[in-house]
């Protein structure tokens, strides 16, 4: 990412490549080898998707990412979330950085730097919009000085911290070299020198009527002070303050600009050097530093979101990622979009466990409606996707498998009017998924074919099940047809549950148990005392 003075925007390198601008060469090969990007171990990928993946809406990840990136539009973070990582090394690289940023010390210095960079962008914006050359140049100088200071500060703070992650460690190394580089030291020195000289400038101003004169400074005692002394005998504590605040703004009006011109005539050499500095240092920023400033926000956004949920007692952890199929499990996991909402409303959250081991691939989720089945399915998908972004995942002790793609099929309510076409469309979509998915995919099916007859649904589900068994992909399938689980040893059954004795109350717990279609019906019958036993007892002969 680089700041283009001409357009006044930060242009990301991938944009610039498209527009044919040559990418800036790193300072030396040394950095090239050691530090590429805080997000990508091996440098940014050639392509980052600007489009939201299809499954985002179904898994409520769109809500999650919207919340995470709220107020961070300037960083254009969403593409980072739209693109998952494909190899365990890259994920580990991010996990390390993410873990490290959980430390308040490190976070603070990164956030301080981010705020400084935001201000610098504003300052440059201001400079660009400034119509008065002497001020434009000064605003630019102020921004450059701020930039140098902020980088110095960031470096100094990072030096004092024990960095363990490859990413931050390499970045610190890069900063050290950058700060020592000719380019940086030169602008730092020059900007400081001019700033000091400007800071020492004093002059006299005489206004009379509409005439304004700028004169060389001829120091006298402050007459306000003299006046205060004179009337000190009339001064009492707690007197009414007649002073109105004069809030400082860097904005300049044309009268001030004219005065500034006058000041420049008193100090011609100094203002000339300011002008020279402005023209010769337009590209003062470093691409890697700017990229860091943007990319680190990915981590900050993520951590802020998770911390809000953590504050309400829900755990997060860094998942184990296995490259080959094996155990997939999570303890105390939950839907993070729901958890965030509940945290905002200060409501309790129900957490669930699951485990697939050995040859197990498919979880069939059944049980009473409104019992947390869909949420559970979403959780499964979120876990996998967050893991491949290198983010912390909800739960403690989580292991997931590396996947090539996530496919979801959730019921689309808006199509209910046209039953036939919806049914057809369902089939088309399922078909597409089965065609595209591989053994390394994650598939999430939610109440498919619920709008057709039981007979049809049974038939189709059996067919789909056969496909899944053949694919051997990890799948979670929410369905009322719980006998599906009997079709294969690779399928396990989980059910949403109700409070014992009160079937109307949901626990939102989804637990692993053999399909037991009667349990729910029985509990309701008991509640109404119409079970066999109860009826026998109640009906007296």
């Amino acid at each position, binding site marked *: 990412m680089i700041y283009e003075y001409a357009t006044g925007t930060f242009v990301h390198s991938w944009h610039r490549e498209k527009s044919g601008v040559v990418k800036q060469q790193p300072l030396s090969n040394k950095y090239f080898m050691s530090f590429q990007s805080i997000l990508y171990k091996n440098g940014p990928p050639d392509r980052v998707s600007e489009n939201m993946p299809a499954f985002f809406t179904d898994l409520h990840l769109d809500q999650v990412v919207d919340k995470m990136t709220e107020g961070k539009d300037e960083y254009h973070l969403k593409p980072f979330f739209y693109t998952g990582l494909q190899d365990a090394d890259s994920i580990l690289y991010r996990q390390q950085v993410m873990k490290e940023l959980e430390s308040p010390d490190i976070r603070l210095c990164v956030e301080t730097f981010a705020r400084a960079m935001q201000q610098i962008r504003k300052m440059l914006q201001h400079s660009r919009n400034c119509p008065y050359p002497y001020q434009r140049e000064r605003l630019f100088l102020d921004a450059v000085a701020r930039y140098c200071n902020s980088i110095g500060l960031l470096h100094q703070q990072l030096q004092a911290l024990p960095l363990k992650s490859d990413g931050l460690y390499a970045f610190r190394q890069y900063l050290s070299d950058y700060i020592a580089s000719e380019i940086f030291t030169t602008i730092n020195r020059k900007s400081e020198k001019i700033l000091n000289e*400007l800071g020492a400038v004093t002059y006299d101003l005489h206004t*009379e009527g509409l005439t304004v*004169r700028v004169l060389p400074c001829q120091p006298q005692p402050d007459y306000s002070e003299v006046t205060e002394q*004179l009337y000190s*005998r009339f001064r009492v504590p707690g007197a009414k303050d007649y002073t109105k605040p004069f809030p400082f703004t860097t904005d300049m009006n044309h009268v001030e600009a004219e005065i500034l011109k*006058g000041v420049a005539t008193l100090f011609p050499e100094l203002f000339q050097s300011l002008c020279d500095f402005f023209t010769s240092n337009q590209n003062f920023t470093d691409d890697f530093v700017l990229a860091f400033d943007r990319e680190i926000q990915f981590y900050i956004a993520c951590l802020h979101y998770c911390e809000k949920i953590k504050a309400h007692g829900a755990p997060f952890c860094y998942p184990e990622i296995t490259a080959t199929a094996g155990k997939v499990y999570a303890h105390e996991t939950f839907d993070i979009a729901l958890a965030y909402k509940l945290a905002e409303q200060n409501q309790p959250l129900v957490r669930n466990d699951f485990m697939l081991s050995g040859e197990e691939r498919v979880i069939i989720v059944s049980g009473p409606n409104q019992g947390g089945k869909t949420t559970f399915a979403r959780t499964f998908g979120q876990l996998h996707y967050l893991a491949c972004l290198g983010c912390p995942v909800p739960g403690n002790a989580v292991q997931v498998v590396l996947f090539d793609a996530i496919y979801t099929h959730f019921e689309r309510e808006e199509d209910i009017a046209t039953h036939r076409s919806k049914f057809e469309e369902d089939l088309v979509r399922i078909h597409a998924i089965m065609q595209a998915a591989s053994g390394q995919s994650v598939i999430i099916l939610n109440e498919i074919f619920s709008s057709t007859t039981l007979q049809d649904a049974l038939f189709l589900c059996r067919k789909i099940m056969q496909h899944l068994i053949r694919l051997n992909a990890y799948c979670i399938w929410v369905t009322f047809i719980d006998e599906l689980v009997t079709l294969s040893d690779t399928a396990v059954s989980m059910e949403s549950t109700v409070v014992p004795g009160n079937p109307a109350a949901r626990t939102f717990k989804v637990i692993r148990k053999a399909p037991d279609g009667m349990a729910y019906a029985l509990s309701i019958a008991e509640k109404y005392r119409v079970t066999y036993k109860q009826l026998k007892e109640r009906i007296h002969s």
Partner: protein
Amino acid sequence: MKPHLLYPDQDFNIKAAMPWNTVVLSKDLELQVLFDCMSGGDELLAEVVPGVFHSSVENNITTILYRQAILKDCISFREIVQEIYDLSFAAIESRKSSWLGIFTSHATSVLSSSVSMMRVYAGYLLRLRTMAVEQGKKFRSEGFLQFIHTLQIELDDAYFDAIENNLSQLSLKSGILTAVRLVEANKGGGYSLQQYEGKKRKWWHRFFPPKIEGYYFNIHPRDESGIQALQQINDEIVSRAANTLAQSNDHILQFFTLLRQELAFYLGCLNLYDKLKALGAPVAFPVVAPPGSPVHCAKALYDPCLALSMSKQVVGNDLSADQCRLIMISGANQGGKSTFLRSIGVAQLMMQSGMFVAAAEYRANITNQVFTHFKKEEDHTMQSGKFDEELSRMNDIASHIRPGNLILFNESFAATNEREGSEIASQIVTALIEKDIRVFFVTHLYDLALHFYEKKSRESLFLRAGRLEDAGRDFKLKEAAPLPTSYGPDLYRKIFDD
């Protein structure tokens, strides 16, 4: 600069919170009559007098004597005092015509308004000083002498010259000169106003302006935003000086306001003095005794409120109650018992205020609270509720009363049968006097009076409203043992005319 005419070391605060029982005290002692007489229809006096009066219970002996001396000066040289009062009044009024600063937020306007205001005030201060120094040689009181001394020291001629010089500089006739530092964003900042004597303009400069030296530019007269910008800069430059001057003006205004308020009290005293003198009623400056061993003596003590409302001299009582903590008054109805009780309360408050008292002689300890517990005339029907209410008021008093205080009971605790009332009252009174509280108790409760009389304590004094041999009241109280009956039959006969 403070007038300090009410307190040797503090200002009068007209907004000070009044003691909690102010309203009750005013009503029970009928102080409004006194206040009306003192204020003589003047609004300011009507506000100041009650404030000073009610806050007087906090005064120490030094303050009381300080005021007595000033009041004596006021009685002797009332024209000078009136003149100072009128001058302070005029100074305060002048603000209305000269001060425009409150309508603007521009420091330059505040400054120019303050400069002209200060000119006016300086004039009044000079007149005040001149008058006070010339006329005030006759004053004897520490308060007035200190006041004149302050004016002489703080407002000498050199100071007035310095003010005049400063005001002409701050009129900014030759424009505003300021030293400026270049700050962030190449803006001007750290403005420091500089003294500036412009070059003398010759008449021909109006037609042939002299060449302006150095870098300069002119803002076009129709460039409104430019003029506004310049205004902003000018405002910032003069802000501090404007504030100083405006605050000084406020202080001077406050000085005159305080002066007027403090003198208003003494003018109120003079009004009362004149009125009582005109009625031929005696007045005297009391002898103030410190807290401690009971001192309470009076000659021809009367209730000024009664005298004023009847517009005639009224009968005074003598009191000789040194060493007495309990003064119990019984006797004839309409025999002047309540009036006597009021005269004690009013005299105490007048003494505490630093005033003369309505008596030929008066001597008493100071106290820092005066309480009244008077029978309520209204609400005859609900006897039990009334007794409840009486005890409730006693509860309020009990939470404020301290040793050394003065309390006046008027027919208290009689809203029940005599035995109960006596028992309650005697328990209360016993507790109070043992706590070193001065108790005046007007009562019909014979049991109560007898209870204390039989103790034969030296600390108790029993007064009785007597009657002349012709059964007409002379409203004089005499030291006498309580009698089992009051003079109700007399009254009955008088009213029923048989």
